[in-house]
């Protein structure tokens, strides 16, 4: 499979993602510069974490207008798989590919720690190799991960099973204490209504191989591959 990883000025998890895609998953990773205008030939796209454009104005707000974004929106609208991790999630929100917005963490601090998340929906191209209710331990590293959306949109997210990951405790209980950043409804990751675009704040690429003593992130990449293998190729 050909997986495109978009490199914005200030991306800093692009090479980690490329490493997981190639060395761990055995697929072809293609780093795509944000000034490029095409994602042709790619089976899936990853928007990596980092601080695109220094987080100026709002996280993701300037990257959202990079030339490559038009191609990514078009790719997503045709049903292509798009995974946004951390800053990539923020860019997807700004681009309108996912609903809602990010606020500063409730505690104001940049949080860099492991967080437990519960798989709320295991029937997505990004979670089909997980089990519903499974608890994953994934690292988070962000200052703006406090997901917010209006009550009407939140109800729609809940009703359509678009909430894929929620912060929880070790036992899988979603409590206020297990919510690291104040996200509404403990949301850690959501998908779009069509199901082919996912954004999440935790970093699965940082825990996807044995050397880290934590491979909980592996199932997300595994799920994408399983989905792509059973997927009809996109029309050219």
């Amino acid at each position: 499979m050909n997986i495109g990883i978009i490199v914005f000025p200030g991306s800093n998890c692009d090479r980690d993602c490329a490493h997981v895609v190639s060395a761990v998953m055995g697929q072809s990773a293609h780093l795509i510069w944000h000034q490029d205008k095409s994602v042709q030939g790619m089976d899936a796209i990853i928007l990596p974490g980092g601080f695109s454009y220094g987080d100026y104005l709002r996280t993701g707000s300037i990257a959202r207008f990079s030339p490559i974004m038009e191609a990514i929106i078009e790719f997503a609208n045709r049903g292509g798989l798009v995974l946004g991790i951390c800053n990539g999630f923020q860019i997807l929100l700004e681009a309108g590919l996912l609903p809602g917005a990010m606020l500063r963490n409730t505690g104001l601090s940049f949080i860099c720690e492991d967080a437990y998340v519960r798989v709320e929906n295991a029937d997505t191209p990004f979670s089909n190799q997980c089990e519903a209710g499974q608890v994953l331990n994934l690292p988070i590293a962000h200052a703006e991960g406090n997901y917010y959306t209006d009550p009407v949109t939140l109800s729609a997210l809940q009703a359509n099973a678009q909430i894929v990951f929620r912060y929880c405790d070790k036992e899988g209980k979603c409590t206020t204490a297990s919510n690291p950043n104040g996200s509404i409804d403990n949301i850690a990751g959501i998908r779009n209504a069509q199901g082919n675009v996912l954004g999440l704040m935790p970093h699965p690429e940082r825990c996807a191989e044995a050397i880290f003593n934590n491979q909980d992130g592996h199932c997300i990449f595994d799920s994408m591959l399983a989905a792509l293998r059973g997927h009809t190729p996109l029309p050219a």
Partner: protein
Amino acid sequence: MKAKVYITLKDGIHDPQGRAVQQSLHTLGFEAVQDVRVGKCLEIELQDMEKEAAEIFLKSMCQKLLANMVIEDFRYEIVST
């Protein structure tokens, strides 16, 4: 001509930054402070044009980039022509 754009969080959106500033003001003895909301002010230099045309530009800039309409409101004023 010069314009000022103010971006503020919508009412009801929790502003932890504002709360931290408020607490700091209280620590300094400004106990009369009842609430603080932190926003942004952008000073924009525009090429000269009719005021109405400038306002259309400013509104469009706010909606497209400067404000995130999910969480923020905006207002603008033309401060010199």
